[in-house]
């Protein structure tokens, strides 16, 4: 612990928040509640309104409709500079003419905090992000990862109600990325600060967040813990956006299930019913596909077209007639004898599947 005292964490709530840019509905009735001390990641494809949502919370953009509250108090009309929300921008946006210390103190000066308290706070922040040796460096003398940590320290220095992070890691390379990600999470837990984290990288969202909200077209499709989201997606969109998925064509049977490959499987309850005979696309996770014997009545035969070693797992790409290449993940020790060009049999081991209109 760095001995930083925190005030009580805040609850952030958006209800029915919309934002229109002319004809574009960047946000379309977004409902979202972030509990005190919780880290919620907003995940979604490019242009789905993640940044817009964050900017509305920060007050850099106004909502066309809906309510924004912090601890139950309406915040819509509060000017951005009075909101006490720490934001970390995608492009760092450190002030290039100020050194690291001055950047971190910027918000404290704006609050007219006396010099002694300021410098104490700056050194706490520098310790927190482990940049003590760079206190007098200018932003252009820092690496991307260091700049991002300064941006984080600057946002945290003002003891914000809510921490807002807009794809803070997207400009960094893979290794630094996961390191800073862990650092952000450590600090966030340490300070117990309510945090909204925007990303379009599902792995990032799953690994850092208490809950992940998947957005699509300006709405929240589903918000849940990472594990729930993965195992119980509420819609085909969520299912295919979270984790890897095969998209296998099939048809709805008279019984209300679906027929894909050589099998009939019941349809997930989360999906609205389709009329029998409807062409659908089933969304199947690689790990729910298993190898089986040729004699299994459910077995589908295919040709191994691709084999890539991923460490403990090996990914097979299997060519099957009438379907795109199907990916299967199998324990590496089980596939030693399999080679490209060989025929194998496999089946879906799930009791129900997600499907959408083809």
């Amino acid at each position: 612990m760095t001995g930083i005292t925190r005030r009580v964490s805040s609850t952030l709530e958006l209800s029915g928040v919309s934002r229109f840019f002319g004809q574009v509905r960047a946000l379309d009735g977004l409902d979202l509640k972030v509990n005190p001390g919780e880290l919620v990641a907003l995940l979604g494809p490019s242009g789905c309104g993640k940044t817009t949502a964050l900017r509305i919370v920060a007050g850099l953009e106004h909502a066309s409709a809906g309510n924004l509250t912090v601890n139950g108090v309406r915040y819509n009309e509060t000017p951005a500079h009075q909101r006490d929300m720490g934001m970390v921008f995608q492009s760092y946006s450190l002030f290039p003419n100020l050194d690291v210390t001055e950047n971190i103190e910027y918000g404290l000066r704006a609050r007219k905090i006396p010099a002694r308290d300021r410098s104490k706070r700056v050194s706490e922040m520098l310790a927190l992000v482990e940049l003590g040796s760079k206190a007098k460096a200018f932003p252009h003398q820092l690496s991307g990862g260091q700049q991002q940590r300064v941006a984080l320290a600057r946002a945290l220095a003002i003891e914000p109600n809510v921490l807002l992070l807009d794809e803070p890691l997207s400009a960094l390379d893979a290794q630094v990325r996961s390191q800073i990600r862990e650092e952000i999470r450590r600090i966030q837990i340490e300070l117990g600060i309510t945090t909204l984290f925007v990303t379009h990288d599902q792995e990032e969202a799953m690994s850092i967040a208490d809950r992940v909200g998947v957005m699509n077209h300006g709405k929240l499709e589903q918000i849940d813990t990472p594990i729930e989201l993965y195992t119980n997606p509420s819609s085909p969109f969520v299912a295919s956006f979270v984790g890897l998925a095969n998209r296998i064509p099939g048809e709805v049977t008279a019984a209300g299930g679906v027929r894909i490959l050589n099998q009939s499987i019941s349809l997930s309850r989360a999906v609205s019913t389709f009329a029998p005979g409807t062409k659908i696309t089933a969304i199947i996770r690689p790990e729910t596909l298993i190898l089986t014997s040729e004699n299994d009545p459910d077995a589908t035969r295919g040709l191994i077209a691709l084999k890539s070693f991923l460490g403990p797992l090996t990914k097979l790409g299997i060519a099957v007639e009438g379907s795109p290449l199907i990916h299967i993940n199998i324990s590496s020790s089980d596939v030693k004898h399999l080679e490209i060009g060989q025929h194998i049999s496999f089946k879906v081991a799930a009791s129900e599947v997600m499907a959408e209109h083809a």
Partner: protein
Amino acid sequence: MKSGVVETPRKTQGGRLGSQVFPLLPFFAFTGYFLIWPVLAVTLRSLRGNEGEWTFSNYTPLLHGSYLHAFTTSIKLSLITSIIGSLLGALFAYVVVRYASGKFSAVLDSISAVFANSGGVPLAFMFIAAFGTEGLVTRVLKTLGWDIYAGHFTIFSFTGVVMVYSFFQIPLMFLVFKPAISGLRKEWLEASTNLGATQVTYWRRVAIPMLLPSFFGAFFLLFAGGFSAYATARALTVGTVPLVPIIIGTLVDGNVVSDQQNLGDALAVGMIIVAGVAMIGYVWAQKSAAKWRQS
């Protein structure tokens, strides 16, 4: 061992230096002969007396009387016009960057480039057409109840020259300063606001400190330009306002007595010195940003 390590790269670098200079020789020769050599030559001749002896006597007339007056007038003129030009030009650049569309600002660029760079003579005549006794603006203002000629104003006066110089100083500032304003990123204002600062704080702590070096750099450029401008004043005043370039011009045009020739040299070098001081200011302005500006 250590010296050996140092020796080798130095040798190869020395070899490369020669082959690096060679292709640049035409450029060095050209600027050396047509830029540096004339400046050197006039400087050297200004230090010679009538019998070819070395002396500073050519410079004595510059230190009092009408020539000193010409220098102070020239400096005053360029100071005033570069203050007006830099302030209004900066404001103009800010508004265009902030609010104008790309196409419109390209057209403004072109207009400014012509006003600032190839204006010279035509500007003087356009100024007469607008603000002369019979000028359009003069007549419009008169019908609005303001007779600009009611006092001592004429376009051939110091005030007139200040006005006409502003016609190229403002556009020049606009051109030179615009890239600096475009360089201010919107996220800095957003970050500042987000950290709880007002717009005033943002300007005081971030925007103005970032713009200041460019602003002063541009200011000194305007000063040097205004100080040495010749064409506009020449076409406009025909010598009613005593400016150093105009005086040099009349010396050159007149029948040159050798006495006056030396005087002309000294005046020319005097101008280089004044402009050189502006150059030092310019370099200082650039340097002051070097500590945080990435190059």
